[in-house]
């Protein structure tokens, strides 16, 4: 039998509606599928990062043992010496030094913004911090070279022209806004009734902050510290410009050094021959860096979740 032929205006309208609905269903499915694939891109990025780092550092670890890599005290890839400790020590000094600036200062600014600052002062300090956070990291490198190091030379005449201290200082400034804004959020999310209760019982404002607000916001505050440290570990341009490219196993802030990130960026610029030992070394160092920051970020996540559970 032939398909029914539309013989009235009503039938035609019904068929048009049906086919329009069909189109719509197709569009719906297409959009849902498209957005789902977009979601998968983020998953593939993670997989891609892990696979690329592992696969490309494998040839490196076939030539250099993991033990030698992690405990060797000399880093001279050209001379066949692949001990990562000099790179780790520079990274560690920069990170610790920057934490000495960003953590106390950031916490104090965070408390100030959440608890004390009058609206007018807030309207100056908040945008200033946002701007500080948005400054590209090469600008901090420029600042280290042209302002911080000359200033430091006045205090420590023996300081190297490229030194870890200047790197630590600019990374500390760079991560300060991160600490202050996260601390402010953590402190603001503590219900007002807690410090108010303390003040009603006769505590001074300082005591209510020290003994009530900060303990209540502690996990958020600690998370901000860890994130700042993680940022400092992964920072590249400012530290490469400030501290230089001399692999140097040192605990002296006045010396130059080379961080893991500085090694990666310096070695991979220009024409790095694909498949040579230098190429694989870059990935081995990258893998180490990735694991360090991943560990720190997971730790910070854990703290963040803890304080979210308590108050919201």
């Amino acid at each position, binding site marked *: 039998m032939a398909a029914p032929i539309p013989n009235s205006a009503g039938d035609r309208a019904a068929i048009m509606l049906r086919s329009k609905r069909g189109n719509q269903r197709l569009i719906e499915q297409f959009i849902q599928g498209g957005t789902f694939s*977009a979601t998968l891109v983020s998953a593939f990025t993670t997989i891609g990062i892990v696979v690329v780092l592992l696969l490309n550092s494998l040839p490196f670890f076939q030539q250099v043992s993991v033990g030698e890599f992690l405990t060797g005290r000399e880093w001279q890839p050209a001379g066949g010496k692949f001990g990562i400790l000099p790179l780790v020590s520079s990274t560690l000094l920069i990170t610790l030094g920057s934490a000495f600036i960003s953590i106390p200062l950031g916490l104090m600014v965070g408390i*100030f913004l959440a608890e004390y600052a009058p609206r007018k002062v807030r309207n100056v300090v908040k945008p200033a911090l946002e701007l500080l956070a948005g*400054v*590209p990291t090469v600008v901090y490198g420029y600042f280290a070279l042209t302002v911080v190091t000359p200033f430091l030379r006045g205090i420590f005449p023996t300081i190297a022209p490229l030194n870890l201290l200047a790197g630590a200082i600019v990374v500390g400034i760079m991560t*300060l806004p991160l600490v202050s804004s996260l601390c402010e959020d953590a402190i603001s999310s503590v219900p007002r009734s807690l410090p108010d209760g303390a003040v009603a019982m006769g505590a001074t404002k*300082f005591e209510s902050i020290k003994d009530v607000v900060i303990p209540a916001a502690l996990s958020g505050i600690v998370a901000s510290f860890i994130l700042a440290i993680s940022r400092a570990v992964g920072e590249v341009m400012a530290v490469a410009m400030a501290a230089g490219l001399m692999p140097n196993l040192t605990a002296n802030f006045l010396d130059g050094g080379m961080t893991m990130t500085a090694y990666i960026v310096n070695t991979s610029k220009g024409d790095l021959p694909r498949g040579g030992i230098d190429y694989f070394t870059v990935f081995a160092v*990258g893998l180490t860096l990735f694991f360090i920051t991943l560990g720190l970020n997971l730790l910070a996540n854990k703290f963040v979740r803890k304080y979210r559970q308590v108050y919201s």
Partner: protein
Amino acid sequence: MSRFSTPAAAARIRQRKTVDRVFVVLMGIAAFIAVSLLVILLYRIGSSGMRYLGPDLINEFPGRRATGSGARHALFGTLWIMSLTLLFTVPIGVGAAIYLEEFNRRDSWFKRIIQLNIANLSGVPSIIYGMLGLAIFVPFVAVLAGDARSGKTLLAGALTMSLLSLPLVIMVAQEALKAVPSSLRDGSLALGATRWQTIRRVVLPQATPGILTGIILAASRAIGETAPLIVVGAAVMVNSVPTGPFDSYGVLPLQVFNWAQRPQQDFKDLSASTIIVLMGILISLNAIAIIMRMRAQRRA
């Protein structure tokens, strides 16, 4: 202080109040230090950068002397990188946010893993993305271009920056979608609109200001980041303006990096001038975001 029974108690109260006041002063000093750091930074860049801030900076290419040198290639390279990055990252990022907030609203293990993954990706150091780009995008682009010698072109750089800014776009867009009241969605669906019609005509217009903020943030990152682009082959020695995605390129922050490290003060000043151009672009982008947000709020 006669209300207190003993002089010792009164003294203790005074001491606690002193500590309280000292604390306030310390907080104020900390905030003052933070603001002054910004002022010193801007002042330093402004005072050193005025010297070479002129038409040469955007009309000329890098030369052997600071006078007459410019960063024309880098300015255009930066604009190219920014545009291409947004071209890739905005549809994917907003799409992913729409899927997570609109199509798949229920809590599930899949969503939890994806969410955790996005949070972790946002904390991966930028240089790691550079290495991903070096291992995957550079050879991929070389094949696309049919030129095995080098894939170190704009396209490889932009793809790398797209992945780098993707978590940021997704997270900000998600926040914007979450802020749209579900009564609006329910109303639209109850009137017979499909999911996509609801998203397109009801949810997205409401969420546009928030999503825009995310896009501007992504653009700012694409402009300011240097390290991953160095790894995937942004170059300093470029004497032409890129004309397509398969051209080699330089970017402004890389030019800043290069000139700041020269021993001559002239080049350091030139570097400061380039920073002014770079930060000028960043600040105007953010100003655009603020203006568009205010307009959208007035309409709503």
